[in-house]
């Protein structure tokens, strides 16, 4: 995954307080995948979604490498896509056979 360290300053909402806090936050997203080199990353998102569910079907939910797909698709995919595909999976309408 591609990650970047960012300095974030938290400012308190109270008007009379001068408290500030500076923390280092690491922001991460899915790394470059040579299978999807162009601007349209829809298939990149979709492939990670499918790979995650095939992974947990084959190896169980606690298998650590599956987490990578999970993080990738949550980073890449619009939430609308994720909820639409989750609904399709529940109703048995998802256009891919997720069994290994």
């Amino acid at each position, binding site marked *: 995954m591609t990650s970047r360290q960012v300095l974030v300053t938290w400012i308190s909402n109270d008007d009379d307080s001068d408290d500030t806090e500076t923390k280092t936050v690491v922001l991460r997203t899915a790394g470059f995948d040579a299978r999807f080199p162009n601007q349209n990353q*829809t*298939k990149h998102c*979709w*492939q990670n979604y499918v790979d995650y569910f095939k992974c947990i079907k084959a190896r169980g939910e606690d298998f650590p490498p599956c987490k990578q797909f999970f993080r990738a698709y949550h980073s890449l995919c619009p939430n609308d896509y994720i909820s639409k595909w989750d609904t399709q999976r529940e109703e048995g309408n*998802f*256009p*891919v*056979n997720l069994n290994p």
Partner: protein
Amino acid sequence: ASFALLTTTFSGVMSFHGVANAGLFLTLGVIGTLTTMGLWWRDCIAEGTFQGHHTKPVQRGLSLGIILFIVSEIFFFLSIFWAFFDSALAPTVELGCAWPPAGIEPIYPFELPLLNTILLLSSGASVTWSHHALIAGDRKGSILGLVVTLIFALIFTGIQAYEYYNAGFTISDGAFGTCFFFSTGFHGAHVIIGSIFLTVALFRLINYHLTNHHHVGYEGAILYWQT
């Protein structure tokens, strides 16, 4: 002619939108269009064969018109092929990035469809035989070749109808159904139109309308058939 066509197109759209009695107008429009076509070309034949108006330049003009029309039909089919390749070569995530899409059982191309292909290719050969026989003055060979062509066409149409009846999917079954029925549907319609064109040619051949060097209508039918 334009009145009949206007009626046909307007009532077609009306029937899609569920306007009452649109079906009746659509039928009238189609009958009007077909009648106009029949009468128009009947006049063409009368002017050419019986009144002698089809001199060499006129023949060239008619041939050019037919060729340009066929070219426009080629572009029409090109657009349908474009739609297919665009859908099938890189299927979208909505289709599950797979072609054929999940749940579609495609027709195996190397059974009946292959027979149909062979029938049409053979009909192309037989119509060429008939044409060469006409040019050589062989009346019997020419008629026989054209009859064989039409028999092949009829068998093709029958088998295609059987396939349509027994297909495991419809035109509304996603991009696959649309591509399949658009391409085969318009193709089948053109086969039927071509068969009618060739049948008219057969009738004229039998009734001595055509000579061994003047048969623009027949050549047009052959060009349409082979395209």
